[in-house]
């Protein structure tokens, strides 16, 4: 009991820390709630010059549509402006990027974790340098050959490029996960007469899923959130969600289009919201994997 009372924090400190946390939570969550609420209004309410409470009550929306809420922004973005196509493209890109980069990344990461030759270190260092490179600096290297061979603008091109940009990070992450799997496991399989690949297939694959899922989450986020590469490498029909949202802003600044962008942004945040809800534990462990170790 004595120890517990010694650890109990004085009231002012508790108050301070609670107020601080509430402020931070407001800063972290309030913008999303506000924008989600405002996405069901017309622009005059979302950006209300006369009175900011209009954004809450939706006065102009009521004048236009007879109700304080309207789905006009969503209808305009998804149906009129074909945002559904961008969503579909994002789905395709993310699915194939995650699958491909995990497949080749597991093989490579496994090899790196099980080999003790000198070149392993240099390969990891090279991957680290590649990881630090801003992807946009590579784009001017992609464009001439892609134009020449008519590869520019297609989804598979963007997928392969994103897979490659993803690899350095994937390799580092999987390398450290595989190092935690005891070497004895596959070595005993080798003693029993398996080839290295059979040992990988029958002994390692069944136990590697936690690490692979965590790595997959980050590959997904990289592909989903990318703007620079997809905006530069995809043509108008094949655009993914993020460049599409940017396009809503860039076209002439009419009333409807800003609200299209607002509705589309809210739509793009929802999958991420669900992702964090389901995989919170994996995301946290993935973020700390590299840090706590080294």
């Amino acid at each position, binding site marked *: 009991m004595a120890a517990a009372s010694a650890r109990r924090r004085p009231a002012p400190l508790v108050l301070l820390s609670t107020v601080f946390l509430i402020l931070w939570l407001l800063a972290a969550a309030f913008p999303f709630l506000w924008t989600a609420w405002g996405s069901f209004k017309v622009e005059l309410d979302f950006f209300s010059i006369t009175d900011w409470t209009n954004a809450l009550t939706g006065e102009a929306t009521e004048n236009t549509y007879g109700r304080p809420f309207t789905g006009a922004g969503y209808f305009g973005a998804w149906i009129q402006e074909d945002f559904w196509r961008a969503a579909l493209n994002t789905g395709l890109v993310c699915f194939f990027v995650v699958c491909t980069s995990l497949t*080749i990344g597991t093989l490579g990461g496994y090899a790196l974790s099980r080999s003790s030759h000198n070149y392993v270190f240099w390969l990891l260092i090279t991957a680290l340098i590649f990881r630090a490179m801003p992807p946009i600096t590579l784009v001017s*290297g992609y464009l001439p050959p892609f134009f020449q061979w008519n590869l520019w603008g297609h989804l598979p091109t963007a997928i392969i490029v994103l897979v490659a940009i993803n690899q350095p990070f994937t390799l580092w992450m999987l390398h450290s996960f595989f190092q935690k799997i005891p070497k004895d496991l596959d070595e005993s399989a080798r003693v029993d007469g398996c080839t290295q690949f059979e040992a990988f297939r029958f002994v390692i694959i069944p136990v590697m899923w936690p690490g692979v899922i965590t790595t997959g989450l980050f590959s997904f986020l990289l592909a989903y959130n990318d*703007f620079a590469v997809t905006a530069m490498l995809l043509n108008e029909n094949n655009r993914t969600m993020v460049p599409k949202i940017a396009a809503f802003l860039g076209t002439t600044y009419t009333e409807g289009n800003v609200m299209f962008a607002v509705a589309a942004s809210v739509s793009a945040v929802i999958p991420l919201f669900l992702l964090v809800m389901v995989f919170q534990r994996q995301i946290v462990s993935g973020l700390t994997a590299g840090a706590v170790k080294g």
Partner: protein
Amino acid sequence: MKHRTFFWFFLPTGLAMLIFIAAPIVSVVMQSFFVPHEAVLVETENCGPFGCTKSVTIDQEATEQLRANNPLGRFAGLDIYLDRGHLAVSEVAEAWRETDSLGAFFSDIGDLPFYRALAFTLTYTFVVTPLLIALGFAIALAVNSLTQRLKGVVIFFSLLPMIVTPLVGSLILFWMIDSRGVLGTLIQYLADDPGLSLKASTSLMWGALITYGVWHSAPFAFVVFYAGLQTVPQDTLESARIDGASRWQQVWYVIVPHLMPLVTFVALIQLMDNFRVFEPIVGFNAAAHATSLSWIIFNDLGGETRQLSAAATTSVLTILGVAILLSPVLVRTWRDFKGKA
């Protein structure tokens, strides 16, 4: 593992990186030394009963021929690096000669596109990084003293700013801070200046971008520090307490030293990531007040005229900047590796 087996296991990922990262880097460096061919012009003289006129036309065939013979373009050496759009050597020298104070010199330099972008990129990198570390540490300390049930909820909401797409996140903030948005109205009200607007004020725009940067990256620092707090040795804390250390002293002399390696880790990662700042400038529509190196590249590549050489040159300069920021990480990794071996 045998070399042969290693080779086959590593081949797919190695090929992907070789073709789509290593080769483009080589290509970018090459492009930065070449400019596109100018069209071959031919002068023809048309003589008629009313005198002769000269006209200049493009010789399509010869231009095509020239482009086919030298697809890289005309060799320009370091010309693109030194031109006005990049290092602007002659402009800098002129500004140095003609201005009489350092302030005037720097304001002259600040009008050159490359230095303007570099100034913002560096300011952003070195202001955002310490701030996000401090904020992340404070959140981690506060969350660590919560009850188990509250922790999950708080961590969930804290992750959102980091997970959300950078462009979307910056748009969401921009729509609120914009002069017509709710926070913009609040700022005007607090400053008692109805004309105050993000679009019109450079300092407000820089402040908003930096706020976005801290908001976006603080969760990463928070999560890392929070995990580190779980491993603080309780014995040391206990003995500090017995020796009469105040709460503040416990944090400063026990917890902070324990977390120091993590602080270095977060700082190095964030320095590299903040250096590539790009999406918020698009999201905040900030190009009139703040540009970054990545933004210049994007701007050169986009639009009707794709200025590949200019973009490639800025890319090479950006890569050099990253390399300087990366060197401490490399030294650290090298030391770890030597330590292990």
